[in-house]
């Protein structure tokens, strides 16, 4: 339609040219039109490209976090060393520290290599031992303590390899970079090659990344998201149980009962302003009020949950009000007409009809809260936490981490292995967010009613 207007009108009437050929001015105007259109396409292309680049960068860096390299070690679990008293009592056995297990493995590993016919020339036993993660003896210890009958047997144990060996198999570490790296030598990498050919070194899917707690700065290979996922889940529970009822109650009051007066106005303005307050300010509020004033424990999910509740409330209130507004007045009138009280008409008729909309809004609010990082940094969720919090309600008051904060935590560490972990954690976070948003869309599609 546009082209038609541009082609027909000016060319013939103003400058007296032919209808069939465009004069200079028309051509210029049409070119400007096409250019302008192109700008729009470019803008959309750039935004979509940015999105794709973002997602692919995260996937590229992060997928490898879900795979981990393990080395096969045949360990003779010597009862003399691991259970000196010989009574198989786990309490007694736990007196043997990880160092005892570490020594066992350090001896067993080179021996196992020789048995498999892999030459270990030009590399010291210490270097060979250093190819295993420092976390491996601790894991072996846990396994033995859980099952004391293993003592005295020779077991085939798949031990975590260090982050550098893992990085070599994933292509992050190369011979050239190993030359410059004090934590790994080319000899170790060559040995890793040989081990891989002898099927003593393999990379497999890494459930531990999702279930294990965080690990220290030097052990990226053992760092997991277990505590962070539990912490985030606890906070979401708190947000759900506080923000949903409070938000819905507030919306019902404002939408159905509130008289038009000063107070109502103030509340409305307040809610719309709260929605735009930077999230970090909520963190300051949490620190000043919940931790310093009320004395709640720092880095506990309860504080995080409360802060996120306050942050999510405006979102939930705004969407709930929209959902309530969408219920036609005839429903209320009908309820009132058959003798229901105002309260009954709202709770028995309006609220159930608005429920899908409310739930959709709540899920979106929760998704927003799940990804929020800044306020949690201020209330101490950055702390290094290795112990799983216990079950709710007590667990709400124990230190935990949160998924987005764990990502930030990973990025502040020096070892390059943590870049992969951080991106992997983002993938987990994005998967959760995707699921929540899909649920919200599904709810909307399934239950949305047009009146």
């Amino acid at each position, binding site marked *: 339609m546009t082209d038609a207007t541009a082609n027909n009108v000016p060319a013939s009437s103003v400058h007296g040219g032919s209808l069939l050929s465009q004069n200079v001015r028309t051509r210029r105007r049409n070119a400007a039109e096409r250019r*302008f259109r192109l*700008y729009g396409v470019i803008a959309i292309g750039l935004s979509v490209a940015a999105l794709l680049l973002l997602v692919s960068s995260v996937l590229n860096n992060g997928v490898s976090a879900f795979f981990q390299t393990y080395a096969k070690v045949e360990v003779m679990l010597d009862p003399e060393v691991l259970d000196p008293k010989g009574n198989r009592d786990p309490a007694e056995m736990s007196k043997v520290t990880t160092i005892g297990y570490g020594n066992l493995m350090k001896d067993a590993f080179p021996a196992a290599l020789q048995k498999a016919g892999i030459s270990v020339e030009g590399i010291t036993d210490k270097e060979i031992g250093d190819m295993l993660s420092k976390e491996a003896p601790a894991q072996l210890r846990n396994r033995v303590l859980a099952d004391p009958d293993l003592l005295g047997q020779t077991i085939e144990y798949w031990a975590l390899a260090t982050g550098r060996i893992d990085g070599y198999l994933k292509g992050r570490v190369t011979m050239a970079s190993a030359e410059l790296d004090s934590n790994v030598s080319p000899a170790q990498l060559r040995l890793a090659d040989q081990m891989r050919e002898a099927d003593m070194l393999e990379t497999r899917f890494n459930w531990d990344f999702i279930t294990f707690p965080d690990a220290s700065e030097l052990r990226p290979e053992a760092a997991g998201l277990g505590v962070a996922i539990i912490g985030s889940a606890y906070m979401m529970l708190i947000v759900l149980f506080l923000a949903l009822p409070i938000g819905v109650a507030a919306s019902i009051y404002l939408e159905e009962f509130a008289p038009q007066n000063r107070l109502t106005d103030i509340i409305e303005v307040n809610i719309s302003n709260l929605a735009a307050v930077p999230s*970090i300010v909520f963190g*300051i509020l949490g620190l000043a*009020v919940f931790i310093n004033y009320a004395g709640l424990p720092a880095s506990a999910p309860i504080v995080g949950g409360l802060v996120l509740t306050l942050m999510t409330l405006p979102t939930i209130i705004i969407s709930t009000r929209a959902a309530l507004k969408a219920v036609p007045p005839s429903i209320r009138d009908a309820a009132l007409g058959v003798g229901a009280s105002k309260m009954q008409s709202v709770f028995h008729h309006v609220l159930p009809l608005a429920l899908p909309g409310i739930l959709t809004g709540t899920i979106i609010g929760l998704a927003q809260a799940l990804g929020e990082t800044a306020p949690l940094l201020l209330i101490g969720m950055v702390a290094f936490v290795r112990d799983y919090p216990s079950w709710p309600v007590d667990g709400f008051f124990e230190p935990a981490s949160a998924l987005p904060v764990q990502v*930030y935590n990973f990025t502040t560490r020096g070892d390059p292995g943590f870049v992969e972990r951080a991106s992997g954690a983002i993938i987990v976070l994005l998967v959760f967010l995707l699921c929540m948003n899909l649920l919200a869309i599904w709810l909307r599609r399934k239950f949305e009613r047009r009146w």
Partner: protein
Amino acid sequence: MSIGLLLLIVVGLGVIGYFLGRRRALASVSGDPRRLHSLPSQYGQSVFLFTVVPALLLLVVWLMAQPQVIDRQVRGMVAADGSEGAALSLKMADVTRISEGLDALVARSAVTEEQLDSMRADFSDIRGRLAEVGVAVGADVEPDVFQAAKARRSLVGTSALMMSLAVLALAAAGFAFALNRIGPEFRARNVSEAVVMALLIGSSLVAILTTLGIVLSLISETLRFFQVYPAREFFLSGVWNPQFRGGSDLGIWPLIWGTLYVSFIALLVAVPIGLLAAIYLAEYADKRVRGVAKPMIEILAGIPTIVYGLFALITVGPLLRDYFAQPLGLGNSSSSVMTAGLVMGVMLIPFVSSLSDDIINAVPQAMRDGSYGLGATKSESIRQVILPAALPGVVGAVLLAASRAIGETMIVVMGAGAAAKLSLNPFEAMTTVTVKIVSQLTGDTEFASPETLVAFALGLTLFVFTLGLNVLALYIVRKYREQYE
């Protein structure tokens, strides 16, 4: 008794009350509900509400007030030797830590209550025992601190016990009172609806309380900051150099400069792209393109900022450094104003585009038709008719985006760097207000030094800035809407 159990008991009592109330109401009219004033379930409801609501309110109030009361009593014990100010608050922190450590010791049954009673700071190795449960105490524990810690512990214990008793007593009293009132003449519906109404009003006051909490905590801590640090220096000095031993320079200007610079670059990216995308989607795109492109752009708004931060840190930062900053000799830092600005710009695109989209769609069709009728091409109508008409709204959208940019934290924490500088080079690392709030408040902080308190002053500045921008933006958008309604 743990709070969870207490909650469970109170709610359980309420549920029992519901059924008893219902039954009692029916019994009072020998099973003929028509003779009751209200529905039987409303009698039950009134008992439930009277049992649960006052008890829970008491619980919340008690939990909020308890730390203050205990703190005041313990403070008296420690302050006996005349210590004041920072020394006193250090001591109080010790008391809190030690008493929590003692709790942990008892919980692990490393010490019994009797042993604890006879423990004295000058004889037993408190420090070593506390280290067992992961509580690190700086110096050896002074006797008065230890006594205060023990006193605090027993106060906390007594208070928890009294709280449980009081809450249960109140729940039982409400239960008995409400149950007793039930009779055919009792207006249960009015009563329970009045309580529910009060709850609804209370919930909507949470928003006001939150704002109040934010404003009060920011202002009171900021005043404390200005007591230990001159306000003139804070507002006028151009140097930001916190020293944790004291003698810091805490001028806000380098931070404000960094914030504005990053936000400016972000808007430079977001406004043209967002606006053009919105124009294309509103005016040119057919339904199919719109159905794909619009959600794609909106996904950008749903991605958490930590993801953008990581993107800046591991992808954009090194890219800019290797291909722009280093070859051009402009610097060799991967975190820079440019990195943070670009990534933040991407984050802001959906804000600008979806708001502008709404605004452009709100321009009346008659204006477009008039312009076409005069022979303008589509782009001419957009540039000369639609955009000028939509301008106030677009300005509002840009202001909202600017307020987002100023308050954004994770992208700048991970992308902009930590050095406070007043420089023009966009490839240099600079820092922002939000970065400094995070860095001054994370870690083990002592809440009396100007170096931590400054974070509250920064927070207040940020709050005032963003609030001002928002109010202005909402005002403009509202004015604009009225124009065409």
